[in-house]
């Protein structure tokens, strides 16, 4: 016990346990050092820089500095792929099984492309059906950006935790989303639906978000999240203190820790 306390104090003195800023807490459970499975006094909640205690070769406990797990949240549509290009460039045609006539199909498709549907239309069953159908097809057809794939793979190789964070309705689109990510060799740890991705990142203590959405860019500073976005025409004059645009995913490397 004295050895352990000494090592803990030493580690703390060296600054390993600083930055207790109230974000996601990592539970440290010290076990086995007394021969019991868990010691009642040996649970500490330490922010991010989590030392772990294990036995060394001669069975004596020692403290190791575990590297904090770096986490990034990444959007899919128009970030990892060319969703909008597919939505606008594909010739979608009316199908006889659709529960509305071709004229309404064309009208709704135009609204979907322009994002101009009013609230009542957005909530109508017909429009919801069309949106699910067309978006579902775009999810499959969308092409992954090669630089994005390479970037995410390199993050994984460097031990980053990767959270895919999307507006997609994963209740219905989970299978094609997983399939697309797997087909394109894009590694990830978790899939999340978040309409407000900044709030999600803040809740989970995620410091880095890659997302094309204007809301994420505009309010990055307010939430204290570093947002990186692939520059598109809609992003003109969008840059803020914490939001940075990029042409190639390689540029993002300079803004995140190695």
């Amino acid at each position, binding site marked *: 016990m004295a050895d352990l306390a000494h090592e803990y104090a030493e580690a703390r003195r060296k600054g390993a346990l600083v930055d207790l800023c109230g974000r996601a807490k*990592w*539970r440290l459970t010290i076990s086995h050092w007394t021969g019991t499975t868990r010691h009642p006094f040996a649970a500490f909640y330490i922010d991010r820089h989590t030392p772990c205690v294990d036995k060394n070769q001669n069975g004596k406990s020692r403290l190791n500095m575990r590297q904090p797990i770096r986490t990034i949240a990444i959007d899919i549509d128009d970030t990892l792929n060319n969703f909008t290009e597919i939505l606008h460039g594909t010739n979608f045609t009316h199908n006889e099984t659709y529960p509305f006539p071709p004229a309404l199909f064309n009208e709704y498709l135009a609204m979907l492309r322009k994002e101009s549907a009013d609230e009542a239309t957005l909530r109508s069953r017909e429009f919801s059906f069309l949106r699910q159908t067309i978006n579902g097809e775009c999810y499959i057809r969308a092409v992954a950006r090669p630089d994005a794939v390479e970037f995410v793979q390199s993050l994984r190789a460097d031990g980053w935790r990767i959270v895919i964070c999307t507006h997609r309705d*994963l209740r*219905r689109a989970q299978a094609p989303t997983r399939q697309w990510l797997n087909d394109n060799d894009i590694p990830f740890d978790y899939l*999340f*639906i*978040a309409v407000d991705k900044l709030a999600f990142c803040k*809740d989970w203590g995620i410091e880095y978000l890659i997302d094309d959405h204007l809301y994420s860019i505009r309010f990055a500073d307010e939430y204290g999240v570093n947002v990186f976005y692939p520059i598109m025409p809609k992003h003109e004059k969008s840059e803020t203190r914490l939001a940075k645009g990029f042409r190639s995913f390689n540029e993002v490397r300079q803004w995140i820790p190695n």
Partner: protein
Amino acid sequence: MDPKLELLKAFYDGLPKDRAKVETLDHGFEYLEKMLTDGMTLEYGERVLLRKVYKYKFSNIPPWKIEELLLAHVQKSCNVCLYFADKSNNLFGFNLDNRHDIKGAATSPEMEFAVSLLRDILTNTGCTPLVVASGKGYHLWCRLAAPVANEQLYQFMLRAMAKTLYALHQKGMDHNQINPRFYPDPRVQDKISLRLFGSVHPNTGAFSRVLMPEGLLDEEASWSAFEQHLRLNTISEETFTDACKAMAPADGYGIT
């Protein structure tokens, strides 16, 4: 075992327990690490907009963990939602939600009329439903003694709902005020989950109370009504077969 937990397990004995959706205020990687043990996996998570509520769809849930989750559900520290079985189920239900721009459950006369009518239609065929206030409408649940093919359940519910909306229309009420859905729906079998009885509003802690013809019951009386429903209103195979026949006479939808 907690009697409420025992009751919950008995009522939902036909639903698969290896996957579930959990609604909770808990979040963070520590929470996930704690949950994802013994082969349990997260299919996806969701942050609900404007409320700090998280929903997690878990699969490969080991038996001890679902027991733990159900206990947490009756203790009101999370809501557990289960998914229907792929081919047949011994449970079916109607969700009658207010139209999106109407707030609250009791404000729409169309809703009150529709719930009362649907309750009567089902009860008259021997399928007495348990009616629960959901916050934005009502849920009506019927429990069967033995599983029935999902397609047959769907056809039965479709006819019951058609009768209800038609009666609403005949009464001069706007059926568009109500957004009806019914489950299990073979089209969205593995996508829609059922929030178990005893759930609470994640933010306000408000309990989902049972609605009897005389009015809403309080929490304890709701649990008693739930217990009584399981004991007295579970529908036998024979009764359901007769109910199907009564619901679908020669005119197809039985609208008269």
